[in-house]
């Protein structure tokens, strides 16, 4: 489903010199699987999510990234989204004056329009919204407020997953979705995420901690260090990492 081959990418800051962050990253996530990416700070985890979704300020210098055989890198961010790519942001943006539901409905309709599908009707949208909100235990009143404005870190993360449930993407990247969540909220969010696991879908779960993976069980775990996947394994690799730390694992890699 998602195939990354020898991906090299630079971050190009507005001020200051470009730095290479991804240095030959290769990864294959087949349809139906959930893969976790773990790694020390500065390994390139967030860069990977931005490169895949097409954020400005990153330049791919070599390699390829394909979703279902289609080259992602030439497409505008909104086109990638319409192809089914979704990023749950580590730091979701505040959008003043735009209620959550207005935003999400605009997103759904833009994607549908790009795919040549009919718009979501108001009753259908409300029905879907009600189901998603109940699943994530979100107060429906919250969905009438401007997106993320004045929301706590945990609420913002919950709303990312709400958007994900509404949009029903085919490939999801969760960038440190667990940060800012207490243990109860983590369970609720994980349940929401798990609801989207399925044969036609794939997920990349970026995290520092094993605890998220207790709730979202990965098929594979990869360790990213200095811009490359240095070790891959089953779910036990995350447990091993938790026990012995990055230093130990990296030495043995």
């Amino acid at each position, binding site marked *: 489903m998602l195939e990354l081959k020898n991906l090299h990418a630079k971050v190009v800051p507005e001020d200051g010199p470009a730095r290479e962050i991804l240095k030959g990253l290769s990864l294959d996530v087949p349809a139906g699987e959930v893969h976790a990416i773990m790694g020390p700070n500065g390994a390139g985890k967030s860069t990977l999510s931005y490169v895949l*979704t*097409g954020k400005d300020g990153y330049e791919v210098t070599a390699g390829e990234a394909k979703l279902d055989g289609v080259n992602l890198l030439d497409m505008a961010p909104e086109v*990638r*989204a319409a192809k089914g790519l979704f990023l749950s*942001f580590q730091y979701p943006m505040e959008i003043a*004056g735009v209620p959550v539901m207005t935003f999400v409905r605009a997103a759904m309709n833009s994607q549908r329009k790009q795919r040549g599908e009919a718009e979501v009707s108001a009753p259908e949208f409300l029905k879907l919204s009600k189901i998603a909100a109940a699943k994530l235990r979100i107060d429906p009143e919250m969905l009438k407020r401007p997106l993320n404005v004045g929301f706590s870190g945990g609420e913002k993360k919950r709303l990312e997953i709400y958007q994900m449930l509404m949009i029903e993407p085919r490939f999801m990247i969760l960038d440190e979705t667990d940060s800012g969540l207490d243990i109860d909220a983590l369970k609720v969010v994980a349940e929401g995420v798990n609801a989207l696991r399925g044969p036609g879908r794939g997920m990349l779960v970026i995290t520092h901690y094993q605890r998220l993976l207790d709730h979202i069980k990965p098929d594979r775990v990869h360790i990213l260090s200095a811009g490359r996947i240095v070790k891959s394994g089953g779910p036990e690799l995350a447990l091993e990492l938790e026990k012995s730390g990055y230093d130990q694992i990296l030495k043995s890699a």
Partner: protein
Amino acid sequence: MSEGKEIIVKDSIDQGTVDAARALESDKYAEGFVTDIEMELAPKGLNEDIVRYISAKKEEPEWMLQWRLDAFQRWKEMTEPTWAMINYPKIDYQDAHYYAEPKGAAKYKTIDDVPKEILETYAKLGIPLKEQEVLLGVEGAVGTAAEARETPPKSSQPRVAVDAVFDSVSVATTFRAELLKAGVIFMSISEAIREYPDLVKQYLGSVVPVTDNFFATLNSAVFSDGTFVYVPKGVRCPMELSTYFRMNAKGTGQFERTLIIVDEGGYVSYLEGCTAPMRDENQLHAAVVELVALADAEIKYSTVQNWWPGDADGKGGVYNFVTKRGDCRGARSRISWTQVETGSAITWKYPSCVLRGDDSTGEFYSIAVTNGRQQADTGTKMIHLGKNTRSRIISKGISAGKSNNTYRGLVSIHQKAAKARNFTQCDSLLIGQTCGAHTVPYVENRRGDAQLEHEATTTKLSEDQLFYTRQRGIGEEEAVALLVNGFVRDVLQKLPMEFAVEAQKLLEVSLEGSVG
């Protein structure tokens, strides 16, 4: 008096914005067409004879001519104000026509006399002038302007009475008879001067004196047409009233004059729309609008200003120098100004309220958008004279391209304005690196018991917000529109429904190509 704080944001020129400003093509301005119709023009230039010519054209009584001539004498001694944050080449006041009318306009007795070119012009702009068409819904409306309006279903379409001003003359006023049944006088000011001289004499110049300022005085001398409204005691005007101003002729200025009087306990909601063709030259538009609200009366005045803003390089466009003022003359009266300003090369405009009556309320809600090379210096004055007077100012400035957008406001609390209250909120949104936003709020306070609140923010539409929105599948232009709509939401909600839709669409069009 406390000097207002000023925020200026200007960074180095970023290539993306330059490209974007270039991409701001003139064909985005759907109202930029020219109507080909034979016109009768006053000779170029401005002198006493021209003032007499205009007055004679309007078949005005002697007192009106004298009023104009006095204004003209006064104007000759005045100098153009320079305090606004706008730059433009010196205007040659002798190089314009001060009067332009479609040939034979004076003879239009009914809508059937109005040439089809003019009816088509308004239809194209989405303004039906035949009453039966209004009742049926906007059947005749064609072209992009109409499509952009997202006309609501025919059955629920609210009726709006329209006064259509084409260059210097009012060509049609709809629903006059029906309004008159309710006692509401709705006609062009030229007709009102002839038919209701006592009312006009009593109120004209009573809010904006002839000597008020350079542009108002010029208008007093040469004003051509505009709208007159009188709502009698205790009457709620049964429909929305509106004037649609269209500048068409080349090399002309438009000098409209509008006078709205609402007698005790009355109510009116009035809408004003403006467009002009795309021309390489600058056209001068110097209007005066006077509102009078007597005791317990309420006036809601909304404007969607979409004069041709000039091209991306700043060539052409309307110079809009406007004096708008409302007088809350009676106790508990209420005046609110809501404006959406997207057009004009230069905007110089401060719709104000004089809160004379005790317990009166003044409101100003504004969205001003500048793009390309547009310059806007706009805001309001709230003059608190009476006891317990309240005012509220919410201003949203959006700057893109290489434009400059200034909010300039004055809140003045006079000696007798016990317990006056004001709330001011000025928010600026910057799109790109090469635009400017400025906030210049002045406060004069002579009372210890006044309650004044002021909030101001300047935000940059951030790349991160745009990316976040695009990641959800929303294209760049639509993402900007969505974010901008969020920014202006609280003001848009103040507009009458059908105008809000139009305003929203207009914002989108105005900001097309504003991100690189």
